[in-house]
């Protein structure tokens, strides 16, 4: 089932078109990686898909136009994880994860059993149950990332858009979070995730979307998208590549000079 269909999305920011005519679709069970160099428009595209930016083109959620959905209804279908893992107040972990239930709560009513269950489950999945009563400002970067991910999972939305969920995490936690996202997709959700690590994208995602200067350069399985030509064109690097345990890895190795990247 197609959960997200975006047709020719363009976004203007400060008089410049930063996302140009990008189309994509995500079906249940799919984990998509949105990759590309800094400033390629990944974050802007993701925010537009979440309905947080004005855009041209059309976005359909579960077959219905984004604009037709009410705020709360949209919030139940689509969960969005912004960059940076910010909490302005040092709430306890449980309270932060509970915020993910806001779209489900009736006005003036406190959380019911299903809400608590969703919160517990999200904390179990992200391995933070033992941190439940800790204030957010006492957590490490890896723990904060997992708490914010738990907050997003607690929404129990069929579609999740996550902006750099593994940025600034150590290798162990990067793998941990990617496994989690893969798990969540396998349980029937569709995910679009902004990533900088090409190997993680290649290993865990079904499909990669490569953005450069706001346009979609390539879309498809890792083998095609992470070709030498694409890496040269979009990232201006060459990469080491290989295979281990039947999975591909791609390791950016050397910068290309201006002339070299022009030839590629």
């Amino acid at each position, binding site marked *: 089932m197609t959960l997200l269909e975006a047709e020719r999305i363009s976004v203007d920011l400060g008089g410049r078109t930063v996302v140009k005519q990008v189309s994509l679709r995500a079906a249940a069970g799919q984990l998509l990686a949105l990759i590309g160099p800094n400033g390629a428009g990944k974050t802007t595209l993701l925010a537009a898909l979440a309905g947080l930016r004005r855009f041209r083109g059309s976005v359909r959620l579960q077959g219905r136009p984004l604009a037709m959905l009410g705020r709360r209804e949209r919030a139940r279908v689509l969960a969005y994880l912004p960059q940076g893992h910010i909490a302005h107040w040092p709430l306890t972990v449980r309270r932060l994860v509970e*915020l993910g239930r806001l779209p489900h709560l009736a006005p003036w009513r406190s959380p019911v059993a299903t809400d608590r269950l969703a919160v517990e489950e999200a904390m179990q999945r992200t391995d933070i149950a033992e941190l439940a009563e800790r204030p957010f400002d006492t957590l490490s970067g890896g723990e904060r990332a997992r708490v914010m991910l738990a907050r997003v999972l607690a929404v129990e939305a069929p579609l999740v858009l996550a902006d750099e969920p593994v940025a600034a995490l150590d290798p162990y936690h990067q793998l941990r979070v990617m496994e989690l996202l893969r798990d969540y997709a396998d349980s029937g959700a569709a995910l679009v995730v902004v990533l900088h690590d090409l190997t993680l994208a290649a290993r865990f995602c079904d499909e990669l979307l490569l953005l450069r200067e706001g346009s979609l350069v390539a879309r498809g399985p890792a083998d095609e998208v992470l070709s030498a030509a694409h890496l040269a064109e979009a990232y201006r690097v060459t990469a080491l590549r290989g295979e281990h345990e039947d999975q591909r890895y791609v390791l950016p190795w050397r910068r290309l000079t201006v002339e070299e990247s022009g030839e590629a």
Partner: protein
Amino acid sequence: MSRVVDADVRRGRRVIVVLAVLAAGLALAGLLLGPLPLSPWQVLTGLIGGDERLALIVLEIRLPRVVLGWMVGASLGLSGAALQGLLRNPLAEPGILGVSASAGLGAVLALYFGLAQVSAWALPFCALGGALLATASLAMLATRDPNPLGLILAGLAVSSLAVALTSLALNLAPNPLALSEMVLWLLGSLRDRGLNDVALAAPFMAAGWVLLLSAGRGLDALTLGEEAARSLGIGLGGLRAQVIGGTALAVGAATAVTGAIGFVGLIAPHLLRPWLGHQPGRLLLPSALAGAVLLMAADLLVRLVSTRQELMLGVVTALIGAPFFLHLLLRGRRTLS
């Protein structure tokens, strides 16, 4: 697991009950104590109008003072907590941000131009207008520049402008009577207020309270930042309008009847955070009660220590509040901005 949640919620309820009992106790003390100490029986007799002299003291002097203290304190505490939540800044407060000063300016202008004599509603409306203008311009600045210290500076500017214009009105005061009338708004007091003042302020304050108390969920969501809050189905424009409108109504009405009383809105939420945590929505109702307790306690203090010349309540809260603010600033240097 659910027991942990319950313990936390139960603690919140306990704090609310303790604050409510404190507020009731202070209200009772406010009725009993004064230049002429009364017994509970005498207060009761006065309340039901059994004795003319007692009725005068209780109904005309002490009851309005107690009720206004409760209402104004609750308004200040509640709007302080809501503004801190909206601006995600522990230093936000109607007094520091110039909302009270702007409401005072509105009131002074109403007096200066003689509007207050034309209609009893002119003064509160002008005070509300001043508060609304100040809060709205602050919210606009806060949206453009999320740095908390930038907001405090903007508040300082708004406050300075309001004070300067108020001084101008005092400077050009047509006669000494008008002058003394206007000075009254600047100092802030619960003295010599009647039940008609209560009736005048109550509808606006109540409307403000409803707006502010129902903003809890939106303020909770804002903890995650504006984009995340929007993705959770919160309409930010509506939330801002709700908190700004609620603050303007509550603080504007409070200032219209008691003048500028600062720092209660700053202190109340801070006193509660060690017990209740930092979740903005959970702090709203307790902050209102704590504000009422603080203001009634300060007013009782004013009445008990004053001998010949009664201290003005606004002066006392500022004397207690300003060092507290300084303390927060110094402590927060690491965590702010």
